[in-house]
């Protein structure tokens, strides 16, 4: 029976304050065969939180396809999924959210998010090669009363990501950013990292080998990150009276040392298991490694390196101090561990050993602070099926209203394109990615700004493409279709870059699951994502769930962010979205369509978030992508650009914005009766704008016909104006004006028109 001298008495109030229900508390008592002490209560509360246990979402997550011939480590098995990329090489990748910390302290919240996801990757034995991110903020333009706060959160998150990624030397090569009222007060910060390893370097987070020593390495443990959970422990000692910030503070320099030391150690055959200390820190890493190893684990808190004296077992076990790892060394190799961490000047302490009794036993200076069966703690959190209810506030305005808007908007089309291109969600993100080091590690074949990031890993002789995608507006209107489209668009972005999609990591950002409407959104979106992943043959290898994304103003637009990775066979297949040469033919693969609902145009130019959202036919989508990929392999394609937010007009304009030289284009969109605004700005799916040399026209058309995909010759590249003819209406824009609207929109929003800093456009 653990010693309870320093503990508070566990009362029903204390249980409730730890977020545990009476039923969950009964379950804890049954597992222990007694009442838990205060430290044990804290341990259960973090392990059974949604963040660690996925208790509300796990039943839904099981709907994702998770197997495939290339999958080496499946979703949920380890810190990150691992996928074979051939020739003995594999990739580990994952996306994770840091929404709540970023809402409170954007710089450190985002920075520690980056640090956390990088640790998840090198824990697997992989060298982290690049990062992406997917961000959502409240509007930074317009008349929102929260404009200043939104800008502060946006600028703070961007500099936090830059701070951590730049210092540790892992390039941030791409991502996506949306602005919408629903994210006011609750930004979404999802960060993605990918690493590369040889199959035989794969490290496991399991405490194997009874008697093996357990090492704590990395930064000292402090009281940071205890957040609300620490409330009750402050009175325990004199020294704990001072307040501590609730958000962890990241130290990318320390993590760089930790990363290099861990990778060096993993080369030495001295490690039986390794796990990072992220959420729930020492608690999670000890009980999870024991549970995976089918063993027990015993640690002594007196031996844990600490930043300050007087910390209680509760605080040490629940601390979320950053840049720490747990290493289960092979017996007899203790000196190898010590030698390497001493070389890198990283704290390292032997704090315990692997046992055979299945118990996670926490000692503190001779007394026992906690004694819990590891497996039930790590794996047997209650699982819930929450109530679902389809929202009744459905949009019933429908097609008639859309047509009315479209028809009445012909006169404003010229202005609408400029307005749409200048919308921060669509505008160039150069203000952001200029702050991210995106060229370190010398693999960035395609820099931020094209459809997907393309990165060459020279030592493995592999070229990877990666993207993050989700249209939250679609998901708010129709989460199932939105989920499908997130996957389809991610795959389309990879295809446009010359890649074959391989696998997916997802980050589910939703509201409070106890509200049936929110849970309905979650279920619909998951089923949509799952259906599309099955269609593309891209299993989900892991990811993260973030619930309770709500501010006093309401719930965020549901956002099942999809991170997708693909492989490019040859460097000649690497393709970008920009037109390359005057006179080239422009072709639309897919159909012009007649779907204006859910479009960015309706939101930006008419202030309306209304459906129906575009429908994606997955079979058609796959054929369009297969055909495009074959054209790329046949060497005929000069540019390929995914047609998404902003529709054809935006896709064509963006294709003109070649970073080396601006191009114009002359385009004829024959679309029968469809009104011009719908033709230009509708966001029908399964469309790709390509450009080819005229000599290849026949060859291109015959390949497209073979694939039985619809296509339409639109016009040609040339001049310094974008001219678009829709049926018998003609519109034209000087390309430099469009480029200026698009290129400078975010800098102008954040820094004002008088922005002194030069942002070179070409």
């Amino acid at each position, binding site marked *: 029976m653990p010693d309870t001298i320093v503990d508070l008495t566990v009362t029903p109030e204390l249980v409730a304050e730890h977020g545990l229900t009476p039923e969950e508390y009964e379950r804890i008592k049954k597992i222990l065969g007694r009442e838990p002490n205060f430290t044990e209560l804290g341990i259960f509360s973090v392990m059974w939180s949604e963040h660690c246990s996925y208790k509300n979402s796990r039943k839904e997550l099981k709907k994702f396809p998770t197997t495939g011939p290339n999958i080496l480590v499946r979703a949920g098995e380890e810190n990150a999924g691992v996928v074979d990329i051939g020739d003995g090489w594999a990739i580990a990748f994952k996306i994770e959210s840091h929404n709540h910390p970023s809402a409170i302290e954007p710089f450190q919240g985002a920075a520690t998010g980056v640090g956390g996801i990088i640790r998840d990757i090198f824990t697997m034995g992989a060298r982290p090669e690049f990062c992406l991110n997917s961000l959502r903020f409240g509007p930074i333009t317009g008349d929102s009363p929260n404009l200043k706060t939104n800008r502060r959160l946006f600028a703070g998150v961007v*500099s936090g990501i*830059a701070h951590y990624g*730049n*210092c*540790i*030397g892992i390039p941030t090569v791409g991502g996506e950013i949306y602005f919408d009222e629903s994210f006011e007060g609750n930004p979404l910060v999802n960060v993605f990292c990918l690493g590369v390893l040889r199959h035989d370097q794969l490290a496991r987070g399991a405490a194997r080998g009874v008697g093996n020593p357990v090492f704590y390495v990395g930064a000292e443990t402090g009281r940071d990150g205890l957040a609300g959970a620490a409330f009750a422990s402050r009175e325990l000692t004199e020294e704990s009276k001072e307040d501590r910030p609730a958000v962890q503070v990241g*130290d*990318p*320099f*320390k993590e*760089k*040392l930790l990363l290099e030391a861990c990778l060096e150690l993993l080369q030495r055959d001295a490690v039986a298991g390794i796990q990072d200390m992220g959420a729930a820190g020492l608690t999670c890493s000890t009980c999870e490694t024991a549970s995976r190893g089918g063993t027990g684990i015993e640690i002594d808190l007196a031996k844990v390196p600490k930043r300050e004296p007087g910390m209680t077992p509760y605080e040490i076990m629940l601390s979320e101090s950053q840049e720490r790892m747990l290493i289960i060394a092979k017996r007899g190799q203790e000196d190898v561990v010590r030698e390497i961490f001493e*070389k*890198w*000047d990283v704290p390292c302490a032997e704090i315990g050993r692997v046992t055979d009794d299945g118990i996670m036993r926490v000692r503190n200076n001779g007394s026992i602070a906690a004694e819990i069966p590891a497996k039930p703690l790590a794996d047997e959190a209650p699982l819930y099926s929450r109530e679902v209810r389809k929202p009744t506030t459905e949009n019933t305005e429908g097609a008639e209203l859309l047509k009315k808007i479209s028809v009445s908007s012909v006169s404003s089309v010229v202005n609408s394109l400029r307005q749409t291109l200048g919308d921060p969600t669509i505008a160039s993100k150069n203000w952001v*990615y*200029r*702050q*991210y*080091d*995106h*060229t*370190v*590690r*010398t*693999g*960035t*074949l395609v*820099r931020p700004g094209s459809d997907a990031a393309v990165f*060459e890993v*020279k030592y493995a002789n592999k070229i990877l493409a990666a993207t993050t995608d989700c249209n939250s507006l679609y998901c708010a209107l129709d989460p199932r279709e939105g989920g499908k489209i997130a996957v389809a668009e991610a795959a389309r972005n990879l295809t446009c870059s010359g890649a074959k999609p391989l696998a997916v990591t997802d980050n589910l950002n939703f509201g409070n699951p106890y509200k049936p409407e929110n849970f309905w959104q979650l279920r619909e979106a998951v089923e949509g994502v799952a259906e599309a992943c099955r269609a593309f043959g891209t299993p989900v290898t892991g990811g993260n769930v973030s619930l309770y994304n709500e501010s006093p103003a309401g719930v965020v637009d549901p956002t099942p962010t999809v991170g997708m990775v693909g492989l490019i066979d040859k*460097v000649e297949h690497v393709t970008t979205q920009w037109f390359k040469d005057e006179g080239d033919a422009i072709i639309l693969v897919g159909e012009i369509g007649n779907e204006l609902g859910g479009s960015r145009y309706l939101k930006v130019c008419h202030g309306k978030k209304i459906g129906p959202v575009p429908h994606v036919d997955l079979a058609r989508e796959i054929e369009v992508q297969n055909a495009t990929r074959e054209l790329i392999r046949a060497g005929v394609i000069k540019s390929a650009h995914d047609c998404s937010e902003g529709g054809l007009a935006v896709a064509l304009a963006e294709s003109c914005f070649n970073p080396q030289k601006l191009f114009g284009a002359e385009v004829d969109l024959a679309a029968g009766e469809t009104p011009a605004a719908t033709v230009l700005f509708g966001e029908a799916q399964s469309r790709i704008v390509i450009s080819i040399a005229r000599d290849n026209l026949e060859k291109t058309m015959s390949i497209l016909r073979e694939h039985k995909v619809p296509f339409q010759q639109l016009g040609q590249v040339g001049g310094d104006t974008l001219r678009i003819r829709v049926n018998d209406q003609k519109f034209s824009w000087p390309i430099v004006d469009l480029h200026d609207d698009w290129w400078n929109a975010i800098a102008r929003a954040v820094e004002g028109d008088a922005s*002194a*800093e*030069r942002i*070179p456009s070409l």
Partner: protein
Amino acid sequence: MKFAVIRFPGSNCDQDCFSAINSIDGAQADYVWHKETSLRGYDAIVLPGGFAYGDYLRCGAIARFSPIMKAVIADARAGKLVLGTCNGFQVLCEAGLLPGALVRNRGLRFVCDMVTMRVEVADSPFTHGCAQGSLLRMPVAHGEGCYFADPETLRQLNEDRQVILRYANDRGEIVPDANPNGSIENIAGIVNRERNVFGLMPHPDRAADARLGSADGLKIFRSMMETIASGRAAAA
């Protein structure tokens, strides 16, 4: 020909320097850990980019006290070629091997971009593979790359032709618009008076492969190799 690539804790372009140098026929790069004390056997020394010791103090202010720096300074004084890129340039300034200082970028933000530079001095040991006035393109990625020197130092630098590279536009004009960080007189790279220590903020190591946008950085490494081969730099 052997290059020592110094690894400080927090160096993060060490691997980029290593692979850029090793991609050149006849060149071999080795990592040298900062706790080492000798650079015997190396023909040239490279201080790579990164955030040595996290750069939480002034950039390079702690790295200059690393054990290896005694050997770097001694070898530099003896005439061995020393190249510092980005953080390496900052360390060289802090160590007193190069004059002036690198301060926060104008605009106060980290800048990652491709820049163009004009070769101001083509007969230096680091640039004699380049034509006088020719343009080089290389990536920059730094938060504190704004070169500053007091008027007297600046006068000396110009008089002794120590300014090797300046930021320029693609017509080769030295204009404020081409300056990514606010460096005084658009200075991108300088040598010491003895001309064997060269520091620059842009990354020759990231401009070693045309597929990544430029291979101009190789000209710097090749120039060093020619200098060493012709015996113009101090022997190892």
